[in-house]
């Protein structure tokens, strides 16, 4: 097992390096000179040379990458062009706010999606299965930013029960989760965020459970007289690895893909930071946020992979 864990970690290293290469090249696929935004329009050729040298843009690109990677290792992701703060601080602050959303959305989405998926998978073809499969398709095809807007229209505009946007009343400092005045800002974003994973998870779980139930060993279990409850326990355990893989992907989505939902609710998380960076053409922040979120995603998938092999040793990958 130890060797297996080490091997998986070693395998994640080249992936992480690949991710860093892609993020590094984001600066170069941007149209125009990467320094365009910091340079005054009337800069002389001489000044441009000096600034280029100061930023290291006069070196060959592979060298620039290594320098960039070296700085990265010390947590230096450069400066934000719009706020002049270190990108690292911007990203960690935003990631904390996103994690707060995920902290609530993940348990809700995973438990609900899994539960209804199991119920549907146990009664394939029956009405409950049809209802669940239909709902799951809706969840999968729902533009979550639109759902957010609809929820705002219903709960904030029509009934004025919950706040529409933001993360606490204006002028408030810090987020106090135990106080209703703060906590009510969480409700709509969390529901919106949880909807798609619920659909996807219900779908996957249903398929996995239905598939395992058709295998021969289930027949054997029944034949030797196990109660239906005990049979289901076996089925669930065998369908778990497949479900876990999707849970890992969805966890990553909740952290990274929340960009649209956070934009709708102006929740100051990593997604909102990204969309601000796009509007301000703040490439360092764009690069830093994407890099951080992707590395978190790589790490999550690694953990899921290891958990999967703990649950079912057969699926260890070579």
């Amino acid at each position, binding site marked *: 097992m130890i060797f297996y864990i080490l091997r998986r970690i070693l395998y994640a290293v*080249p*992936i*992480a390096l*690949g*991710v860093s*290469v*892609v*993020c590094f090249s*984001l*600066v170069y*696929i*941007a*149209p125009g000179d990467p320094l365009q935004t910091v340079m005054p329009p009337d800069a002389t050729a001489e000044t441009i040379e000096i600034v280029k040298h100061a930023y290291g843009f006069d070196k060959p690109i592979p060298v620039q990458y290594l320098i960039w990677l070296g700085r990265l290792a010390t947590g230096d992701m450069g400066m934000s062009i719009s706020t002049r703060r270190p990108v690292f601080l911007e990203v960690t602050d935003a990631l904390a706010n996103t994690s707060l959303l995920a902290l609530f959305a993940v348990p809700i989405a995973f438990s609900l999606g899994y539960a209804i998926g199991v119920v549907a998978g146990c009664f394939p073809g029956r009405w409950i299965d049809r209802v669940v499969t239909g709902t799951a*398709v*809706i969840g*999968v*095809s*729902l*533009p979550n*930013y*639109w*759902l957010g*807007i*609809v929820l*705002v*229209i219903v709960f904030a*505009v*029509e009934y004025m029960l919950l706040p529409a946007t933001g993360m606490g009343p204006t002028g408030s400092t810090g987020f106090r989760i135990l106080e209703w005045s703060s906590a009510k800002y969480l409700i709509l974003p969390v529901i919106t965020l949880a909807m798609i994973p619920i659909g996807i998870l219900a779908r996957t779980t249903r398929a996995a459970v239905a598939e395992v139930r058709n295998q021969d060993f289930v027949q054997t279990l029944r034949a030797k007289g196990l109660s239906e409850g005990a049979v289901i326990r076996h089925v669930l355990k065998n369908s778990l690895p497949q479900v876990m893989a999707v849970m890992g992907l969805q966890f*990553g*989505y909740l*952290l*990274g*893909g929340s*960009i*649209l939902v956070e*934009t*709708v609710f102006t929740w100051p998380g990593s997604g909102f930071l*990204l*969309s601000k*960076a*796009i*509007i301000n*053409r703040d*490439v360092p922040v*764009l690069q830093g946020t*994407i890099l951080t*979120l*992707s590395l978190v*995603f*790589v790490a999550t*998938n690694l953990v899921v992979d290891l958990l999967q092999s703990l649950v079912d040793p057969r699926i260890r990958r070579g």
Partner: protein
Amino acid sequence: MTDIAAIDRPLDTFDEQAAPATRVRGYWRSVLYRLRHDPVTLFFAAIVLLVVLAAIFAPLIAPFDPYKESVVGRLKPLGWRGHLFGTDELGRDMLSRLIYGGRVSLLMGVVPVLIASIVGGLLGVVGGFAGGRINTAIMRTMDVFYAFPSVLLAVAVAGAMGGGITNGMLALTLVFIPPMCRVAETATTQIRMLDYIEAARATGAGTVTVIRYHVLGNVLGPVFVYASSLVSVSILLASGLSFLGLGVRPPTADWGLMLSTLRQSIYVVPIVCALPGAVIFVSSVSFNLVSDGLRAAMDVRL
């Protein structure tokens, strides 16, 4: 209504019995047969067709000019002076803009998937057929792109390149190539070692011939079904990009962009503001269910 159904049913079963039991249908005929007997898929295929036709014939159908602004007619509710779906923040007719908006949204839903199917499919077939180091090199490169959540990758690439329709489609293509490549690679690897490929080789068929006549036939099915499921994702992602300001530029009518600009007006005409999202939702559900139906009818496992 029930009477017609009652008459219809015996006729149907009669047709069934009339067909000789031993008749063997070709693959495509049986696919067509299964599709014809799948009312859910047919229903949503009709919606897809409707959306596509509306987009193609937009100038003929749209009741108003989608770009005609009106100072007095801003943000009017449903049915105001012949504007069935109301007007937007510049007084433009919503129904006409929704019809025209389908053009960009469908374009961005289909083109990236099409290009990604060709590029990703080819890479997958080449990798799967060649095996060994070439395959490892291709698939490990794809793994890197897998390490990004899809929305994030699309936003990153489109954001860095500065938005616009072309950049948006390029970003979406990049997002879809890796999964497409994986589907094609899996299908190719599965049949590469089968006897009939060996037999074809033994008769002297070259690599290109084997791939063209024996491999592609087995790979195109899964690739096609998977591509059809991606169209729904692509529509969602494309309108997401427009919503963030990375897709089309105003004043072009586009569902995502309309949703984003109307968001400021939810306190004035809430229902009108929610319409573009509803259209995105309906198209996405329809494409999704048609794809599910195709998968079942073509008996493809992904």
